[in-house]
């Protein structure tokens, strides 16, 4: 094998003994049994029922809101002239951004040989897929006639019409659908060996059949593993530029427009950093209750939370830099409309949003400079929650505040979300929770085979012949 060092040796090189990213005392047997039993056992934690019930109820809210939308049209939302993009685009960007951390953990940290990712990559990838699914709801229904959405796809049709490839909105269709597809492939391929484990460990007939079909006859042959590892690395290499491109293209939706507050060259990198920031906040929001619920402290250790908190802090600082540059460029450009845009954010009708955003995204994460804050799960959880809110506010400020006051004061207008905007937003959180809880119950939420790799006994003792 010439394509690089093995993951086993990599884990040694990264330094700390695996004890810090995995509690000592585990063997292949115990780690497999413990992780597989989460999906296979009959006993489900009480917290699961609670979470799944909340997710289910809120999903019903989403369905009700969307059903009414289909009857009445998008007039039930608060969007109108001049704010034609309201909650729906805010939520779309928010959800897509959240997805980015999953790909970062599964692809970029794999390429960087960070073995600590092995215990969090699976559910982070699941989070990506569910977040993208939630995001996709919004543009789908925002078109007003979702039954004609297939017009966005280039296909030979009797109308003789084709999409306009010079529009960032069609780029978005390509970027988001490719991202969803590749994430799903990556997630599924990563699960094949674990599905085989579940197939072999399952007691019930139906479980054997279902996991067996999904595992596709995986038998752990050395020849298979070799191609499997190559495929994983190549997929990671492909997903890395992809994930950077997705939020870049999302930012083009704005940056290619001329509205003050949108037309900025800083947008692509600033959006990508914001996406990773939001995504890690969501991973922490999920990981902290999860490790409690399934007592996974041995696998998702203080070291993991610490690392994630550091990434949160670093990306938070990049996002903060983005805010500063935005404000600086508004004044430096000498453009009165750009300058007014910043004054409008600071003191206009939506100033509370802007100041709350600065508090959430700029100020709060500074707590993470302190080791004590990074080591306290309660503090981390609160910080992550505040960042989740902050990133939503950021998109609100960019989308709504910019549109509400553009060039001509006679065309200014305020936006107010209706109850249906809120129902769709909260409903999508419910859909996300419902999908997440189903995943936790039915599929291996921690990659079992990758956890075996970081065990000390996984190393081959070298006795050169």
């Amino acid at each position, binding site marked *: 094998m010439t394509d690089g060092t093995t993951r086993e040796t990599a884990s040694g090189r990264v330094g700390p003994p695996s004890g810090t990213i995995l509690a000592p005392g585990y063997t292949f047997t115990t780690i497999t049994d413990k992780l597989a039993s989460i999906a296979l056992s009959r006993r489900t934690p009480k917290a699961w029922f609670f979470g799944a019930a909340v997710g289910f109820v809120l999903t019903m809210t989403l369905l009700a809101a969307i059903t009414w939308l289909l009857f009445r049209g998008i007039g039930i939302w608060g969007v109108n002239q001049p704010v034609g993009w309201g909650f729906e685009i805010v939520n779309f960007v928010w959800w897509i951004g959240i997805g980015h951390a999953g790909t970062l953990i599964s692809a970029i940290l794999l390429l960087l040989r960070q073995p600590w990712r092995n215990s969090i990559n699976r559910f982070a990838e699941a989070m990506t897929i569910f977040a993208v699914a939630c995001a996709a709801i919004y543009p789908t229904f925002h078109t007003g006639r979702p039954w004609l959405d297939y017009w966005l796809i280039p296909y030979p049709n009797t109308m003789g019409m084709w*999409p306009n490839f010079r529009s960032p909105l069609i*780029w978005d269709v390509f970027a988001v659908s490719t991202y969803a597809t590749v994430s799903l492939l990556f997630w599924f391929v990563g699960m094949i060996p674990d599905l085989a484990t579940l197939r072999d460990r399952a007691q019930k007939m139906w479980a054997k059949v279902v996991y067996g079909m999904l595992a596709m006859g995986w038998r752990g042959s050395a020849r298979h593993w070799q191609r499997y590892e190559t495929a994983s690395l190549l997929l990671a290499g492909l997903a890395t530029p992809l994930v950077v491109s997705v939020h870049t293209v999302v930012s083009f939706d704005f940056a290619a427009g001329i509205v003050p507050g949108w037309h900025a060259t800083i947008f692509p990198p600033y959006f990508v950093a914001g996406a990773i920031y939001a995504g890690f906040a969501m991973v922490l929001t999920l990981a902290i209750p999860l490790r409690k619920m399934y007592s996974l402290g041995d696998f998702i250790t203080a070291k993991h939370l610490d690392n994630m908190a550091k990434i949160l802090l670093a990306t938070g600082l990049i996002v903060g830099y983005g805010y500063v540059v935005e404000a600086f460029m508004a004044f430096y450009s000498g453009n009165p409309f750009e300058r007014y845009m910043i004054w409008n954010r600071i003191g206009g009708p939506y100033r509370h949003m802007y100041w709350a955003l600065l508090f959430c995204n700029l100020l709060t994460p500074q707590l993470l400079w302190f080791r004590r804050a990074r080591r306290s799960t309660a503090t981390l959880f609160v910080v992550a929650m505040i960042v989740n809110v902050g990133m939503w506010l950021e998109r609100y400020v960019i989308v709504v505040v910019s549109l509400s006051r553009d060039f001509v004061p006679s065309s200014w207008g305020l936006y107010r979300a209706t109850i249906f905007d809120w129902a769709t937003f909260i409903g999508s959180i419910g859909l996300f929770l419902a999908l997440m809880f189903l995943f936790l119950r039915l599929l291996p939420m921690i990659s079992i085979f990758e956890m075996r790799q970081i065990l000390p006994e996984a190393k081959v003792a070298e*006795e050169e012949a």
Partner: protein
Amino acid sequence: MSAPRLYGLMAEFENPSDLVAATRQARAAGYVHLDAYTPYPLEALAEALDIHDRRLPALVLGGGILGGLFGYALCYWTSVIAYPLNIGGKPFHSAPAFIVPTFEMTILFAAFAAVLGMLGLNGLPMPYHPVFNTPRFAMASRDRFFLCIEARDPKFDHDETWAFLTKLGPRVVMDVEE
């Protein structure tokens, strides 16, 4: 009453080092049709078995190139030939605007090539395989390491191979029925 045909002999090991050592010895003894089964990827094993399959990266590269050409051709054909629209006076052939769909198609095709190529070269999905006839083989996805010398190997002789495998210090040696 015909006895079931033999697929090969399977030896079970407790740890990766024993398996890698056994695989090296089996190769040294001249066996060629053999495979090892492990609960996680083991680079040293690929070396011991001398697995050098370079087809997958080539497939992925091919997929990527095909996807890129397809993406650009789609944009060009649509915007210049099939449905030329004057949008804000921009040229029909707006190369910079075509970069994004081209890039996305490159990644999409390459990713499909990686996944389908991996499955295809591995011969998956495969609903039936003789190794599963060994009840203990279920542990290959948990904590055990297996070496299988296949009956089609020219050097294979049931008793002799059995004795050879026993010498390597496995937990058990088993018949694998076809």
